[in-house]
Structure formats: C-alpha cells, structure tokens
C-alpha cells in the first residue's frame, strides 16, 4: 500500500530583487496514513514553503507531489481549490478565523462551501465543538475567545470536511506555554483518532510529541528522526 503523501524531488524558487532564492531544493519524503510528522528547522529553511506545497496553495517548480493518490503538482487552480476543500485541513499560527462569524459559523464555512446540507453541517459543528472542548462557545465570536480557544476553533474548522491530511503551521506559536501544552494534547488525540498530521514548528515540545521529525536547512532535508 502506497504512502498517503509522496514527495519526490520537490523544488521551489522565488524571484527576489537580488536574484532567485531556492526555497526548496529537491525534497523527497513520504508520510504514511495516520502518521504525525513534525518539520523543524531554522527560520527561512523552507518549512512553510513545503507546507504551502503540501496544502496546494502553491505550485512546485520541479518534482512531484502525490496526496491520497492525486498528483497535486498538476492541479489547476480550480482543482487545487476543490482538493484543499475536500482533502486538506489547514491550521495557521495566527488562527485566522473570520472575525465577523461566530465559532460555529467559522467551523461551518468550509462545509457550506462543500454544499453539505444545513442539518448535517449543524450536527457536525456540534460534534467538532465538543471534540475540541468548546461545546459552550458556539455563538462566541473570535474576539470573545482566548488564543487557545481560537486555535481550537481553527482546528475544528480544519477538520470540518474530514480531510485526509491536517497541515499545521506553528500552531502553538501564538500561545503561552500552558495553552501550548493543551494544544499538543489535542494534536495527540487527533492523531490517535486517525488523523494524519504534518506540523511545521519551532516548538520543541510539539516536535517531540510527533512520531517523526524531519529536520530542514537551506531548503533541503538534512535529517529525520523517529520517536
């Protein structure tokens, strides 16, 4: 059985004023179904670029990327959007919830886009709010929630359409230490319940909690470690 994520010789360059920047230089690795992988490394090593490619919000200049049997690097914009909606869950460092919507509406947003019927959406929202421990916060707006609560809502939103892969970019970066630990526990529970996770992090505890760590530097993988 093939891996859920297959990354082969992935390269991505950016044009800067001083010349091209090689953000990724032929990166290759696999992520198995149900695995929790942490990508670590110093700032500017290409972690976020790799995450953007895995999430189909950016396209590689070379190499191939296959997720759940689909060649992501060959998708056009419309197909990539549908792919992100159905197969990818995104968690951002700064939560990026829609400030005008309630917690429930934020979680409902990707399901509405996927044209899931209202009754099913509402039931799923309640299920997810309960899962992330925010059952009583459905009608709160982001400004009425703490950072940890906002990140939980963001995770619930990422899980709304039952994605094949959950991508997280510094999910504890904006949280205090205690809340960060709670978030690590939540990721652990998610992974235990079958969610495949790729997380980019500077947080040593988050990285240590992952089953596998990929160390990057200057756009390339320099080491891998399995717990």
């Amino acid at each position, binding site marked *: 059985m093939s891996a859920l994520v297959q990354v082969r010789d992935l390269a991505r360059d950016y044009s800067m004023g001083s010349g091209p920047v090689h953000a990724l230089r032929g990166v290759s690795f696999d992520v198995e179904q149900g695995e929790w992988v942490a990508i670590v490394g110093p700032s500017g090593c290409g972690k976020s670029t790799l995450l953007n490619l895995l999430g189909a*919000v950016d396209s590689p200049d070379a190499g191939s990327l296959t997720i759940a049997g689909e060649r992501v690097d060959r998708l056009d914009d419309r197909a990539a*959007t549908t792919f*992100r909606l159905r197969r990818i869950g*995104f968690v951002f460092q*700064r939560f990026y919830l*829609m400030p005008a919507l309630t917690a429930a509406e934020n979680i409902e*947003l990707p399901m509405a886009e996927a044209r899931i019927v209202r009754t099913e959406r509402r039931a799923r929202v309640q299920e997810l709010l309960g899962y992330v421990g925010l059952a009583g916060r459905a009608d709160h707006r982001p400004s009425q929630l703490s950072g940890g609560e906002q990140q939980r809502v963001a995770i619930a939103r990422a899980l709304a359409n039952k994605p094949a892969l959950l991508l997280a970019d510094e999910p504890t970066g904006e949280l205090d230490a205690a809340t960060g630990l709670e978030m690590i526990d939540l990721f652990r529970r998610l992974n235990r319940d079958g969610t495949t996770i790729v997380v980019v992090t500077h947080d040593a505890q988050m990285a240590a909690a992952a089953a596998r760590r990929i160390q990057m530097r200057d756009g390339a993988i320099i080491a891998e470690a399995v717990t």
Partner: protein
Amino acid sequence: MPFRLALLALLRHKARTMLALLGIAVSAALLLDMVMLATGMRDNFQGFLLLRGYQLRVAPKGTLPFDSDATIDSAATLVAAIARVSGVVAVSPVLGAQSQTTAHDSTVTAFTLGIDPRVQGDYELLRGADLADSVSIVANERWLALTRHRLGDTVQLAVGYDPQLRTVVGQRAFIVRGVARFFYTGTTQPTIAMRLPVLQEMGGNARRDHVSLLMVKAGDDVDVEAVRARIQAAGARVSVISLEGATAQVEQRLAYFRQLALVLGSISLGVGILLVTTLITIGVNERAGEIAVMRAIGVAKRSIVTQVVTEGLLLSGVGAFSGLLIGLVTAQWLERILADFPGMPATFRFFVFQPHDAGLALGMLGSAGVLAGIYPAWRASSLPIAGTLRREAVA
C-alpha cells in the same frame, strides 16, 4: 454564506458604510430626479395637452399655439370646415388677448381668452357660473386678488391698449360670474375668459372673426393622424399639430435640457460606481488576509467573487432604495420651486413619478453595483494565497 459574509463585511465598519450609503442615496436621488425630469416632462406634456381630450391643435401656419401674436382669419368658416371633416367630434376656437382693468389706482393686465363655453378646453370652473351671456367673465384667483373683485362685481375691461397713444380699441363692462382654474396659464398670471365673439368684437377689425388657436377633438376610435392630415389638407394657411407632433417639437426644444439631465444623471451614476468601487476595494484590501485564508481552506474564487459583488449590490441596493425616497422628496421640493416660475401653467408637472422610471433608476444602480464590485472582486479572487498569508504573518 456569501450573502451573510458580505453583509457582515459591510457591518464591520458601520460609520463608513453609512456614509457610503448616504453618498449612494444622494447619487440615486439625483439619478431618479434626472430620469423623472427627462421622461416626465415629455409624458406630462402629452397629458397636459390632453387634459380635455383635444388631440389636435390648429395654429397659424408655422407657429405653435400662442407662440406668437399671429392669428387665423376667417375663423368661423374654418371652424365649420373642420367640423365637417370625417372623424372630428368637436372644435374649440380660442382667441388670446391682453385686457386691462383699473383697480385701486393701478392697472391690472390680464391674459384674456375668448372661448366657446360649450366646447372650451381651457379651464375648469371652481365657483360661480360659467359664461352664460356676453357680459359674463370668469377669472382666476390671481386676477381676483389683484383687482380685489368678487363674484358678482361689475368691472370695466379694455382690450387693445396702445401705451404710446394711451388709447384702447374696445372697452366694455362685464360681470364676474365665476372663478376658474386655467390649465395653460401660470398660477401667477392673472387670467380671465369671456365669450369668443365678445373678445373678437372688442379687438376691432384686427380681431374680428380671428382666432389664435383651434383645439380639435377626434373620435375615440379614429386614427388621429389621419384626421390631422385631412384637416391639414382642408386648411393650407394653418399648421395642424397632433399630440405626437407637438411632443416632437417640444422635445426638439427641450433637447439641450434633456442632454443636461442625461449628463448629470450619468455623472451621478459614475460617482455612485466610483464610490462603491472605492469602498469595496478598501474593504478587500483590509481583508486580504481573511480572503487568502478562505481560499486556503478551499473557498472557491466564484464564492469570493459572489461575496464581493454582493457587497456592491447590497450597498447600491440599500442606497438606491433610500435614494428613491430622497429623490421623491427633492422632486416635490423642486416642483414647488419650478411651479412658482412666472408663466408656468398650474397643471404642468416637471417631475412625474412613474414606476418605470423608478425601476429604470434602480436597475441602473443595481447594474452599477455589480459593475462596481467587478474590480474589487477580481482583485480579491486573484490574491496569491501563499504570498498574502506570508505578508499577513509578517505584518
């Protein structure tokens, strides 16, 4: 969801949205007024001429009714000839003149109509009696106010006054029998009416058997244009003007005015479009990060475009409805100002509200709303997701 997101995006900055709505409402009001003015004058003019059902006007050759002092001679023969034309059901002769009367050491000059009370189409009687005999006159309120006469008073009227020789052609005593509202003269214009033969007689040789105008009524199921052609063929020395012809001539004269209305309306529409475009573009720029996140979690470009265009539609729609009310109020206000212009007929309306006009103005603003949303929608939907998120993170 796009509708709700659009609504919430607008409500996020209430003061800004309210100010923009006010601006759009003013633009919409101006647009509606211009549309009402441009089309209303024409439509009202037709109704104005048709007040008593006379579809045709017969005036001296090459003139419009009361456009000059020219008159038609041998009027009785012409009236009889026109009355015999197939399809004609009534002919109303009208002679216009100036009359003077002295009241409390001042002279009041009045526009005086000589008419046939059986077929007249120039006034409606408000009080008193109509022109029962040759000593009767009916007058409007303005004339009564200036002369301080009342119903039943006897007055001396003179016609054909020569200011250099200080002579008059004719002078007679009349009794004020009725108070009337004259359709085609201004409310500030003192106006009276008497029987046609009396005014012709008072006007001397120059007015004997003369009329200024004939109003002709054709049967309901008759081709008016065919009747017009038959009358024109019967009377080579007159111009026979149908409603359409008169409207066309008035339209020709009002062309500059309508062009001005069109330009002002277009400018107000353009201002509305720019206002909505600016506001939504600012909103899109402020929400670039949110839009990039929505795209990242799988929201399609189509949904983003729908949301942004909906914002434009909401702004222009609510603004247009508010503008409709403002436009109606300002139209009434302007109508009152214009009605006070000297010589403006009391029955003439510049602004005529028609659902079609309101629909046209709303439709134009709705289209403007969509148009205004296109640029910011394109901008929002084409934001580079990764780059925008990176910039947001750095910011």
